[in-house]
Protein backbone atom coordinates (compact mmCIF):
# COMPACT_ATOMS: atom_id res chain seq x y z
CA UNK A 1 0.00 0.00 0.00
CA UNK A 2 1.30 3.43 -0.90
CA UNK A 3 1.87 5.88 1.87
CA UNK A 4 -0.07 8.90 0.62
CA UNK A 5 -0.12 10.68 3.97
CA UNK A 6 3.68 10.74 3.93
CA UNK A 7 3.73 11.99 0.34
CA UNK A 8 1.67 15.09 1.02
CA UNK A 9 3.95 16.26 3.80
CA UNK A 10 6.52 18.91 3.01
CA UNK A 11 9.97 17.97 4.21
CA UNK A 12 12.72 20.52 3.92
CA UNK A 13 16.29 19.71 4.78
CA UNK A 14 17.23 23.40 4.71
CA UNK A 15 16.77 24.82 8.20
CA UNK A 16 16.06 28.35 6.97
CA UNK A 17 13.59 27.37 4.27
CA UNK A 18 11.92 25.05 6.76
CA UNK A 19 11.27 27.73 9.38
CA UNK A 20 7.76 27.90 10.76
CA UNK A 21 5.66 30.37 8.70
CA UNK A 22 5.03 32.69 11.65
CA UNK A 23 8.78 32.95 12.28
CA UNK A 24 9.28 33.82 8.64
CA UNK A 25 6.55 36.44 8.96
CA UNK A 26 8.46 37.96 11.91
CA UNK A 27 11.65 38.05 9.84
CA UNK A 28 9.78 39.77 7.00
CA UNK A 29 8.38 42.34 9.41
CA UNK A 30 11.75 43.01 11.04
CA UNK A 31 13.43 43.29 7.65
CA UNK A 32 10.83 45.84 6.57
CA UNK A 33 11.45 47.85 9.75
CA UNK A 34 15.22 47.71 9.11
CA UNK A 35 14.66 48.89 5.55
CA UNK A 36 12.79 51.96 6.76
CA UNK A 37 15.53 52.69 9.29
CA UNK A 38 18.24 52.39 6.63
CA UNK A 39 16.14 54.66 4.41
CA UNK A 40 16.62 57.47 6.93
CA UNK A 41 20.41 57.27 6.78
CA UNK A 42 21.23 59.82 4.11
CA UNK A 43 24.70 60.15 2.67
CA UNK A 44 26.40 62.26 -0.04
CA UNK A 45 25.88 66.00 -0.47
CA UNK A 46 22.30 65.69 -1.64
CA UNK A 47 21.25 63.16 1.02
CA UNK A 48 20.70 59.93 -0.89
CA UNK A 49 19.77 56.84 1.18
CA UNK A 50 22.46 54.85 -0.60
CA UNK A 51 22.81 52.16 2.06
CA UNK A 52 19.58 50.63 0.77
CA UNK A 53 21.60 49.29 -2.18
CA UNK A 54 24.10 47.16 -0.27
CA UNK A 55 21.27 46.16 2.07
CA UNK A 56 19.76 44.30 -0.86
CA UNK A 57 22.66 41.87 -0.68
CA UNK A 58 21.07 40.53 2.51
CA UNK A 59 18.15 39.27 0.43
CA UNK A 60 20.45 37.46 -1.96
CA UNK A 61 22.42 35.93 0.89
CA UNK A 62 19.19 34.85 2.61
CA UNK A 63 17.88 33.25 -0.59
CA UNK A 64 21.21 31.52 -1.19
CA UNK A 65 21.33 30.24 2.39
CA UNK A 66 17.76 28.93 2.03
CA UNK A 67 18.74 27.12 -1.15
CA UNK A 68 16.27 28.91 -3.39
CA UNK A 69 18.49 31.50 -5.08
CA UNK A 70 17.67 30.31 -8.60
CA UNK A 71 13.92 30.59 -8.19
CA UNK A 72 14.21 33.89 -6.31
CA UNK A 73 16.33 35.52 -9.02
CA UNK A 74 13.53 34.89 -11.53
CA UNK A 75 10.95 36.60 -9.32
CA UNK A 76 13.37 39.37 -8.38
CA UNK A 77 13.95 40.16 -12.05
CA UNK A 78 10.30 41.14 -12.36
CA UNK A 79 10.56 43.31 -9.26
CA UNK A 80 13.73 44.90 -10.63
CA UNK A 81 11.96 45.93 -13.83
CA UNK A 82 9.23 47.68 -11.83
CA UNK A 83 11.81 49.33 -9.58
CA UNK A 84 13.82 50.50 -12.58
CA UNK A 85 10.77 52.11 -14.18
CA UNK A 86 9.99 53.90 -10.93
CA UNK A 87 13.62 54.98 -10.62
CA UNK A 88 13.65 56.52 -14.11
CA UNK A 89 10.22 58.14 -13.89
CA UNK A 90 10.90 59.66 -10.47
CA UNK A 91 14.39 60.81 -11.42
CA UNK A 92 13.33 62.72 -14.50
CA UNK A 93 9.87 63.89 -13.52
CA UNK A 94 10.00 65.07 -9.92
CA UNK A 95 11.19 68.70 -9.69
CA UNK A 96 12.44 70.47 -6.60
CA UNK A 97 15.77 71.46 -5.11
CA UNK A 98 18.88 72.23 -7.16
CA UNK A 99 19.26 71.23 -10.77
CA UNK A 100 21.94 68.56 -10.86
CA UNK A 101 22.16 67.53 -14.49
CA UNK A 102 20.61 68.52 -17.80
CA UNK A 103 20.77 67.16 -21.34
CA UNK A 104 18.37 68.56 -23.92
CA UNK A 105 14.92 68.38 -22.40
CA UNK A 106 16.01 65.92 -19.69
CA UNK A 107 16.61 67.42 -16.27
CA UNK A 108 17.44 65.85 -12.97
CA UNK A 109 16.64 67.72 -9.78
CA UNK A 110 17.91 67.01 -6.30
CA UNK A 111 14.56 66.00 -4.86
CA UNK A 112 13.73 63.83 -7.84
CA UNK A 113 16.90 61.83 -7.47
CA UNK A 114 16.37 61.42 -3.74
CA UNK A 115 12.77 60.13 -3.99
CA UNK A 116 13.76 57.93 -6.95
CA UNK A 117 16.57 56.16 -5.11
CA UNK A 118 14.60 55.91 -1.89
CA UNK A 119 11.37 54.60 -3.45
CA UNK A 120 12.87 52.14 -5.91
CA UNK A 121 15.26 50.55 -3.40
CA UNK A 122 12.60 50.44 -0.68
CA UNK A 123 10.50 48.48 -3.16
CA UNK A 124 13.40 46.21 -4.10
CA UNK A 125 14.13 45.41 -0.48
CA UNK A 126 10.60 44.91 0.78
CA UNK A 127 9.38 43.04 -2.30
CA UNK A 128 12.59 41.02 -2.11
CA UNK A 129 11.94 39.78 1.41
CA UNK A 130 8.41 38.79 0.37
CA UNK A 131 9.85 36.92 -2.60
CA UNK A 132 12.02 35.00 -0.15
CA UNK A 133 8.97 34.26 2.03
CA UNK A 134 6.84 32.94 -0.81
CA UNK A 135 9.63 31.04 -2.53
CA UNK A 136 10.43 29.12 0.63
CA UNK A 137 6.85 28.63 1.82
CA UNK A 138 4.01 26.76 0.17
CA UNK A 139 0.44 27.99 0.28
CA UNK A 140 -0.77 25.11 2.38
CA UNK A 141 1.91 25.81 4.97
CA UNK A 142 0.70 29.38 5.27
CA UNK A 143 -2.96 28.46 5.51
CA UNK A 144 -2.22 25.74 8.05
CA UNK A 145 -0.21 28.19 10.14
CA UNK A 146 -3.01 30.74 9.91
CA UNK A 147 -5.52 28.18 11.12
CA UNK A 148 -3.22 27.10 13.94
CA UNK A 149 -2.77 30.69 15.03
CA UNK A 150 -6.49 30.79 15.75
CA UNK A 151 -7.79 32.17 12.49
CA UNK A 152 -11.31 31.05 11.63
CA UNK A 153 -11.29 28.05 9.25
CA UNK A 154 -13.58 29.92 6.90
CA UNK A 155 -11.12 32.80 6.60
CA UNK A 156 -8.29 30.31 6.11
CA UNK A 157 -10.32 28.68 3.32
CA UNK A 158 -10.81 32.03 1.61
CA UNK A 159 -7.06 32.65 1.76
CA UNK A 160 -6.05 29.28 0.31
CA UNK A 161 -8.73 29.12 -2.34
CA UNK A 162 -7.92 32.66 -3.49
CA UNK A 163 -4.32 31.65 -4.14
CA UNK A 164 -5.45 28.55 -6.04
CA UNK A 165 -8.13 30.40 -7.96
CA UNK A 166 -5.65 32.89 -9.43
CA UNK A 167 -4.15 30.05 -11.43
CA UNK A 168 -7.54 28.58 -12.36
CA UNK A 169 -8.90 31.94 -13.51
CA UNK A 170 -5.79 32.44 -15.59
CA UNK A 171 -6.46 29.15 -17.31
CA UNK A 172 -10.15 29.96 -17.78
CA UNK A 173 -9.33 33.32 -19.28
CA UNK A 174 -7.22 31.61 -21.92
CA UNK A 175 -10.14 29.31 -22.79
CA UNK A 176 -12.50 32.26 -23.04
CA UNK A 177 -10.01 34.24 -25.15
CA UNK A 178 -9.77 31.33 -27.56
CA UNK A 179 -13.56 31.03 -27.70
CA UNK A 180 -13.91 34.76 -28.40
CA UNK A 181 -11.19 34.57 -31.02
CA UNK A 182 -13.16 31.83 -32.73
CA UNK A 183 -16.11 34.23 -32.85
CA UNK A 184 -14.04 36.91 -34.50
CA UNK A 185 -12.99 39.04 -31.53
CA UNK A 186 -9.43 40.18 -32.11
CA UNK A 187 -7.34 39.56 -29.04
CA UNK A 188 -3.86 40.10 -30.38
CA UNK A 189 -2.24 43.21 -31.74
CA UNK A 190 -1.60 46.70 -30.49
CA UNK A 191 -2.84 48.25 -27.30
CA UNK A 192 -6.16 49.47 -28.72
CA UNK A 193 -7.03 46.08 -30.21
CA UNK A 194 -6.29 44.41 -26.89
CA UNK A 195 -8.31 46.99 -24.98
CA UNK A 196 -11.30 46.27 -27.20
CA UNK A 197 -11.01 42.55 -26.45
CA UNK A 198 -10.92 43.29 -22.74
CA UNK A 199 -14.65 43.35 -22.10
CA UNK A 200 -15.77 40.36 -24.17
CA UNK A 201 -13.17 38.23 -22.40
CA UNK A 202 -13.42 39.65 -18.91
CA UNK A 203 -17.19 39.67 -18.50
CA UNK A 204 -17.69 35.93 -19.07
CA UNK A 205 -14.71 35.21 -16.86
CA UNK A 206 -16.07 37.15 -13.90
CA UNK A 207 -19.67 36.05 -14.36
CA UNK A 208 -18.55 32.46 -14.68
CA UNK A 209 -16.54 32.74 -11.48
CA UNK A 210 -19.51 34.22 -9.62
CA UNK A 211 -21.86 31.50 -10.84
CA UNK A 212 -19.47 28.69 -10.05
CA UNK A 213 -18.88 30.08 -6.57
CA UNK A 214 -22.50 29.26 -5.76
CA UNK A 215 -21.99 25.64 -6.73
CA UNK A 216 -18.71 25.56 -4.85
CA UNK A 217 -20.55 26.58 -1.69
CA UNK A 218 -22.86 23.60 -2.15
CA UNK A 219 -19.85 21.36 -2.76
CA UNK A 220 -18.26 22.50 0.49
CA UNK A 221 -21.53 22.06 2.31
CA UNK A 222 -21.78 18.50 0.98
CA UNK A 223 -18.27 17.83 2.29
CA UNK A 224 -19.17 18.85 5.82
CA UNK A 225 -17.49 22.24 5.72
CA UNK A 226 -19.82 23.66 8.37
CA UNK A 227 -19.64 20.55 10.54
CA UNK A 228 -19.20 21.46 14.18
CA UNK A 229 -16.36 20.03 16.19
CA UNK A 230 -12.62 19.58 15.73
CA UNK A 231 -11.23 18.92 12.26
CA UNK A 232 -8.43 16.55 11.31
CA UNK A 233 -5.42 17.79 9.37
CA UNK A 234 -3.58 15.33 7.18
CA UNK A 235 -0.87 17.88 6.55
CA UNK A 236 1.37 18.40 9.56
CA UNK A 237 3.36 21.57 9.88
CA UNK A 238 6.84 20.86 11.22
CA UNK A 239 9.29 23.24 12.86
CA UNK A 240 12.85 23.19 11.60
CA UNK A 241 14.36 23.84 15.04
CA UNK A 242 15.93 27.17 14.20
CA UNK A 243 12.80 29.21 14.99
CA UNK A 244 14.08 30.58 18.29
CA UNK A 245 17.51 31.48 16.95
CA UNK A 246 16.14 33.07 13.77
CA UNK A 247 13.55 35.15 15.61
CA UNK A 248 16.10 36.30 18.19
CA UNK A 249 18.64 37.19 15.50
CA UNK A 250 16.16 39.21 13.45
CA UNK A 251 14.89 41.13 16.47
CA UNK A 252 18.44 41.71 17.75
CA UNK A 253 19.68 43.06 14.43
CA UNK A 254 16.69 45.39 14.20
CA UNK A 255 17.20 46.70 17.74
CA UNK A 256 20.93 47.24 17.14
CA UNK A 257 20.25 49.04 13.91
CA UNK A 258 17.67 51.24 15.59
CA UNK A 259 20.09 52.00 18.43
CA UNK A 260 22.82 52.86 15.93
CA UNK A 261 20.48 55.14 14.04
CA UNK A 262 19.52 56.99 17.24
CA UNK A 263 23.18 57.31 18.17
CA UNK A 264 23.87 58.94 14.79
CA UNK A 265 21.15 61.49 15.49
CA UNK A 266 22.45 62.30 18.91
CA UNK A 267 26.07 62.69 17.85
Amino acid at each position, binding site marked *: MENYIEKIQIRKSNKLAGLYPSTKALIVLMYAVCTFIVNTIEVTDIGLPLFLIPQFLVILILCKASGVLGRCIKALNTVAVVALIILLVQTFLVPGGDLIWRFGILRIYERGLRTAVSLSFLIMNIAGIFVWLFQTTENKEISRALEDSGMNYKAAYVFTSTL*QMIEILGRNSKTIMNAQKARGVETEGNLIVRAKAFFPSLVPLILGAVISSEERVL*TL*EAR*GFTMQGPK*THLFELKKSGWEGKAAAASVLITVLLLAGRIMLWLL
Partner: protein
Amino acid sequence: MAVVIECKDVTYYYPLTEKPAVEDLNLKIESGKFYGVVGENGAGKTTFCALLRGFAPGFYKGELKGEVLVEGKKTIEYGGELSAKIGYVFQNPFTQISGVKDTVFEEVAYGLENFGVPVEEIERRVIEVMKMTDIEALAEKNPFDLSGGQMQRVALASVIVLEPDILIIDEPTSQLDPEGTESVFRIIKALKDRKKTIILVEHKIDLIAEYADEVLVFEKGHLIKSGDKEKILSDISLLDRGVSLPQVAILGAKLKEKGFPLRKIPVTEDQAVRMIRESLKEGKQDA
Protein backbone atom coordinates in the same frame (compact mmCIF):
# COMPACT_ATOMS: atom_id res chain seq x y z
CA MET B 1 -39.06 -0.89 3.77
CA ALA B 2 -38.24 1.99 6.08
CA VAL B 3 -39.00 5.50 4.90
CA VAL B 4 -35.87 7.67 5.02
CA ILE B 5 -37.10 10.88 3.42
CA GLU B 6 -40.65 12.13 3.40
CA CYS B 7 -42.14 15.14 1.65
CA LYS B 8 -45.47 16.35 3.01
CA ASP B 9 -47.45 18.86 0.91
CA VAL B 10 -44.25 20.54 -0.17
CA THR B 11 -44.52 23.73 -2.18
CA TYR B 12 -41.40 25.81 -2.70
CA TYR B 13 -40.82 29.27 -4.15
CA TYR B 14 -37.37 30.57 -5.02
CA PRO B 15 -36.78 34.11 -3.76
CA LEU B 16 -38.53 36.80 -5.80
CA THR B 17 -40.57 34.33 -7.82
CA GLU B 18 -44.36 34.16 -8.01
CA LYS B 19 -44.61 30.66 -9.41
CA PRO B 20 -43.57 27.74 -7.23
CA ALA B 21 -40.66 25.66 -8.55
CA VAL B 22 -42.17 22.58 -6.90
CA GLU B 23 -45.83 22.35 -5.93
CA ASP B 24 -47.92 19.98 -3.77
CA LEU B 25 -45.25 17.34 -3.51
CA ASN B 26 -46.08 14.27 -1.46
CA LEU B 27 -43.58 11.48 -1.53
CA LYS B 28 -41.88 8.83 0.53
CA ILE B 29 -38.35 7.72 -0.27
CA GLU B 30 -37.71 4.21 0.98
CA SER B 31 -34.39 2.96 2.24
CA GLY B 32 -32.23 0.96 -0.16
CA LYS B 33 -34.16 1.82 -3.29
CA PHE B 34 -32.88 3.45 -6.44
CA TYR B 35 -35.03 6.30 -7.71
CA GLY B 36 -34.65 7.65 -11.22
CA VAL B 37 -35.93 11.22 -11.63
CA VAL B 38 -36.96 12.29 -15.12
CA GLY B 39 -38.73 15.21 -16.75
CA GLU B 40 -38.20 18.14 -19.07
CA ASN B 41 -35.73 20.92 -18.35
CA GLY B 42 -37.21 23.28 -15.81
CA ALA B 43 -39.63 20.65 -14.49
CA GLY B 44 -38.28 21.01 -10.96
CA LYS B 45 -35.92 18.05 -10.75
CA THR B 46 -32.94 19.96 -9.41
CA THR B 47 -35.14 21.92 -7.01
CA PHE B 48 -36.50 18.58 -5.80
CA CYS B 49 -32.95 17.41 -5.08
CA ALA B 50 -32.11 20.68 -3.32
CA LEU B 51 -35.25 20.30 -1.20
CA LEU B 52 -34.34 16.77 -0.12
CA ARG B 53 -30.85 17.89 0.86
CA GLY B 54 -32.12 21.01 2.62
CA PHE B 55 -30.24 23.40 0.28
CA ALA B 56 -33.71 24.77 -0.44
CA PRO B 57 -34.57 26.74 1.61
CA GLY B 58 -31.39 26.45 3.74
CA PHE B 59 -29.02 27.91 1.16
CA TYR B 60 -31.24 29.35 -1.56
CA LYS B 61 -33.66 30.90 0.98
CA GLY B 62 -37.07 31.37 -0.62
CA GLU B 63 -40.34 30.12 0.82
CA LEU B 64 -41.11 26.54 1.79
CA LYS B 65 -44.60 25.32 2.62
CA GLY B 66 -45.09 21.85 4.02
CA GLU B 67 -42.33 19.67 5.44
CA VAL B 68 -39.32 17.75 4.22
CA LEU B 69 -38.34 15.13 6.79
CA VAL B 70 -35.07 13.21 6.77
CA GLU B 71 -35.32 10.29 9.16
CA GLY B 72 -38.23 12.02 10.83
CA LYS B 73 -36.47 15.33 11.39
CA LYS B 74 -37.07 18.48 9.33
CA THR B 75 -34.20 19.39 7.00
CA ILE B 76 -34.23 22.98 8.26
CA GLU B 77 -33.47 21.73 11.77
CA TYR B 78 -30.29 19.97 10.69
CA GLY B 79 -26.97 21.81 10.64
CA GLY B 80 -23.79 20.60 8.96
CA GLU B 81 -24.37 17.01 10.06
CA LEU B 82 -26.80 16.40 7.20
CA SER B 83 -23.71 15.98 5.01
CA ALA B 84 -22.98 12.75 6.89
CA LYS B 85 -26.42 11.38 6.02
CA ILE B 86 -26.92 12.59 2.47
CA GLY B 87 -24.26 12.70 -0.20
CA TYR B 88 -24.82 15.24 -2.97
CA VAL B 89 -23.20 15.22 -6.38
CA PHE B 90 -24.17 17.53 -9.21
CA GLN B 91 -23.69 18.34 -12.86
CA ASN B 92 -20.63 20.44 -13.25
CA PRO B 93 -17.50 18.49 -12.38
CA PHE B 94 -15.35 21.66 -12.38
CA THR B 95 -17.16 23.34 -9.50
CA GLN B 96 -17.09 20.23 -7.36
CA ILE B 97 -13.41 20.57 -6.58
CA SER B 98 -12.89 22.23 -3.22
CA GLY B 99 -10.15 24.53 -4.52
CA VAL B 100 -7.91 24.21 -1.48
CA LYS B 101 -6.19 20.89 -2.10
CA ASP B 102 -3.22 20.09 -4.31
CA THR B 103 -3.76 16.39 -4.94
CA VAL B 104 -6.66 14.08 -5.64
CA PHE B 105 -5.85 12.14 -2.49
CA GLU B 106 -6.24 15.24 -0.31
CA GLU B 107 -9.33 16.31 -2.24
CA VAL B 108 -11.07 13.01 -1.48
CA ALA B 109 -9.91 13.19 2.13
CA TYR B 110 -11.20 16.75 2.59
CA GLY B 111 -14.67 15.81 3.82
CA LEU B 112 -13.26 13.36 6.35
CA GLU B 113 -10.91 16.04 7.65
CA ASN B 114 -13.94 18.26 8.22
CA PHE B 115 -15.64 15.41 10.05
CA GLY B 116 -12.64 15.09 12.34
CA VAL B 117 -11.94 11.44 11.46
CA PRO B 118 -8.56 10.12 12.74
CA VAL B 119 -5.68 10.21 10.24
CA GLU B 120 -5.16 6.43 9.92
CA GLU B 121 -8.83 5.86 9.26
CA ILE B 122 -8.90 8.64 6.65
CA GLU B 123 -6.04 7.03 4.77
CA ARG B 124 -7.69 3.61 4.81
CA ARG B 125 -11.09 4.88 3.70
CA VAL B 126 -9.73 7.18 1.00
CA ILE B 127 -7.62 4.44 -0.55
CA GLU B 128 -10.57 2.08 -0.51
CA VAL B 129 -12.83 4.61 -2.23
CA MET B 130 -10.15 5.55 -4.76
CA LYS B 131 -9.94 1.88 -5.72
CA MET B 132 -13.70 1.62 -6.02
CA THR B 133 -13.96 4.70 -8.23
CA ASP B 134 -10.86 3.80 -10.22
CA ILE B 135 -8.94 6.99 -9.49
CA GLU B 136 -6.03 5.59 -7.52
CA ALA B 137 -3.71 6.15 -10.45
CA LEU B 138 -4.58 9.86 -10.26
CA ALA B 139 -4.01 10.13 -6.50
CA GLU B 140 -1.05 12.48 -6.72
CA LYS B 141 -2.33 14.67 -9.54
CA ASN B 142 -3.77 18.13 -9.13
CA PRO B 143 -7.57 17.79 -9.28
CA PHE B 144 -7.81 20.75 -11.68
CA ASP B 145 -5.59 19.00 -14.21
CA LEU B 146 -8.05 16.15 -14.73
CA SER B 147 -10.53 15.58 -17.55
CA GLY B 148 -14.25 16.10 -16.91
CA GLY B 149 -14.92 12.39 -16.46
CA GLN B 150 -12.03 11.98 -14.06
CA MET B 151 -13.12 15.05 -12.09
CA GLN B 152 -16.65 13.72 -11.80
CA ARG B 153 -15.25 10.45 -10.45
CA VAL B 154 -13.21 12.43 -7.93
CA ALA B 155 -16.37 14.35 -6.95
CA LEU B 156 -18.24 11.07 -6.50
CA ALA B 157 -15.36 9.58 -4.52
CA SER B 158 -15.22 12.65 -2.27
CA VAL B 159 -18.86 12.10 -1.37
CA ILE B 160 -18.85 8.29 -1.20
CA VAL B 161 -15.92 8.36 1.22
CA LEU B 162 -18.22 10.02 3.77
CA GLU B 163 -20.33 6.84 3.66
CA PRO B 164 -23.75 8.49 3.54
CA ASP B 165 -26.76 6.16 3.41
CA ILE B 166 -28.53 8.37 0.91
CA LEU B 167 -27.01 9.73 -2.28
CA ILE B 168 -28.55 12.45 -4.41
CA ILE B 169 -26.92 12.61 -7.80
CA ASP B 170 -28.08 15.37 -10.12
CA GLU B 171 -27.28 14.77 -13.81
CA PRO B 172 -23.75 13.53 -13.18
CA THR B 173 -23.10 12.69 -16.80
CA SER B 174 -24.61 15.63 -18.68
CA GLN B 175 -21.17 17.12 -19.34
CA LEU B 176 -19.33 13.87 -19.95
CA ASP B 177 -18.45 11.82 -22.99
CA PRO B 178 -19.77 8.24 -23.37
CA GLU B 179 -16.68 6.79 -21.74
CA GLY B 180 -16.98 9.13 -18.76
CA THR B 181 -20.68 8.35 -18.50
CA GLU B 182 -19.97 4.65 -18.41
CA SER B 183 -17.36 5.00 -15.67
CA VAL B 184 -19.74 7.08 -13.56
CA PHE B 185 -22.51 4.52 -13.96
CA ARG B 186 -20.20 1.70 -12.95
CA ILE B 187 -19.75 3.54 -9.67
CA ILE B 188 -23.48 4.15 -9.28
CA LYS B 189 -24.08 0.45 -9.88
CA ALA B 190 -21.56 -0.44 -7.17
CA LEU B 191 -23.40 1.89 -4.79
CA LYS B 192 -26.69 0.23 -5.63
CA ASP B 193 -25.14 -3.14 -4.86
CA ARG B 194 -24.19 -1.76 -1.44
CA LYS B 195 -27.88 -1.08 -0.79
CA LYS B 196 -27.54 2.69 -0.67
CA THR B 197 -30.63 4.78 -1.21
CA ILE B 198 -30.01 6.59 -4.48
CA ILE B 199 -31.90 9.46 -6.06
CA LEU B 200 -30.57 10.04 -9.55
CA VAL B 201 -31.60 12.75 -12.00
CA GLU B 202 -30.60 11.66 -15.47
CA HIS B 203 -31.64 12.44 -19.02
CA LYS B 204 -30.12 9.28 -20.45
CA ILE B 205 -33.31 7.30 -20.00
CA ASP B 206 -31.87 3.97 -21.09
CA LEU B 207 -29.53 4.11 -18.12
CA ILE B 208 -32.45 4.84 -15.78
CA ALA B 209 -34.31 1.86 -17.26
CA GLU B 210 -31.27 -0.28 -16.67
CA TYR B 211 -30.51 0.64 -13.06
CA ALA B 212 -33.46 2.28 -11.29
CA ASP B 213 -36.08 0.52 -9.17
CA GLU B 214 -38.60 3.33 -9.23
CA VAL B 215 -39.09 6.29 -11.51
CA LEU B 216 -40.36 9.74 -10.55
CA VAL B 217 -41.69 11.89 -13.38
CA PHE B 218 -41.76 15.66 -12.98
CA GLU B 219 -43.63 18.15 -15.13
CA LYS B 220 -43.87 21.89 -14.49
CA GLY B 221 -43.10 21.56 -10.80
CA HIS B 222 -45.45 18.66 -10.19
CA LEU B 223 -44.66 15.03 -9.55
CA ILE B 224 -47.02 13.59 -12.16
CA LYS B 225 -46.13 9.94 -11.92
CA SER B 226 -44.17 7.71 -9.63
CA GLY B 227 -43.82 4.00 -9.19
CA ASP B 228 -42.18 0.88 -10.51
CA LYS B 229 -39.90 1.63 -13.47
CA GLU B 230 -41.46 -0.99 -15.74
CA LYS B 231 -44.90 0.48 -15.21
CA ILE B 232 -43.82 4.06 -15.74
CA LEU B 233 -41.37 3.66 -18.59
CA SER B 234 -43.75 1.51 -20.62
CA ASP B 235 -46.43 4.21 -20.42
CA ILE B 236 -46.30 5.51 -23.96
CA SER B 237 -48.62 8.42 -23.16
CA LEU B 238 -45.72 10.06 -21.31
CA LEU B 239 -44.06 10.75 -24.66
CA ASP B 240 -46.69 13.42 -25.31
CA ARG B 241 -45.79 15.11 -22.04
CA GLY B 242 -42.19 15.70 -22.98
CA VAL B 243 -40.74 12.70 -21.16
CA SER B 244 -38.32 10.64 -23.16
CA LEU B 245 -38.79 6.88 -22.97
CA PRO B 246 -36.34 4.06 -23.67
CA GLN B 247 -35.89 3.27 -27.37
CA VAL B 248 -36.95 -0.31 -26.77
CA ALA B 249 -40.20 0.76 -25.08
CA ILE B 250 -41.07 2.84 -28.14
CA LEU B 251 -40.12 -0.08 -30.36
CA GLY B 252 -42.31 -2.41 -28.27
CA ALA B 253 -45.27 -0.06 -28.46
CA LYS B 254 -44.91 0.30 -32.23
CA LEU B 255 -44.67 -3.49 -32.64
CA LYS B 256 -47.76 -4.01 -30.53
CA GLU B 257 -49.61 -1.41 -32.56
CA LYS B 258 -48.79 -3.35 -35.73
CA GLY B 259 -50.18 -6.53 -34.16
CA PHE B 260 -46.94 -8.18 -33.06
CA PRO B 261 -47.80 -10.44 -30.11
CA LEU B 262 -45.75 -9.00 -27.23
CA ARG B 263 -46.77 -9.87 -23.67
CA LYS B 264 -45.92 -6.41 -22.46
CA ILE B 265 -43.78 -3.43 -23.38
CA PRO B 266 -40.09 -3.95 -22.59
CA VAL B 267 -38.02 -1.17 -20.99
CA THR B 268 -34.47 -2.52 -21.23
CA GLU B 269 -32.60 -3.99 -24.14
CA ASP B 270 -32.26 -7.41 -22.49
CA GLN B 271 -35.98 -7.59 -21.87
CA ALA B 272 -36.74 -6.55 -25.42
CA VAL B 273 -34.47 -9.17 -26.95
CA ARG B 274 -35.91 -11.89 -24.72
CA MET B 275 -39.53 -10.95 -25.29
CA ILE B 276 -39.24 -10.60 -29.02
CA ARG B 277 -37.39 -13.92 -29.25
CA GLU B 278 -40.09 -15.64 -27.19
CA SER B 279 -42.84 -14.14 -29.28
CA LEU B 280 -41.13 -15.23 -32.48
CA LYS B 281 -40.75 -18.79 -31.15
CA GLU B 282 -44.40 -18.92 -30.12
CA GLY B 283 -45.33 -17.56 -33.53
CA LYS B 284 -43.40 -20.39 -35.21
CA GLN B 285 -45.00 -23.02 -32.99
CA ASP B 286 -48.45 -21.68 -33.82
CA ALA B 287 -47.72 -21.80 -37.50
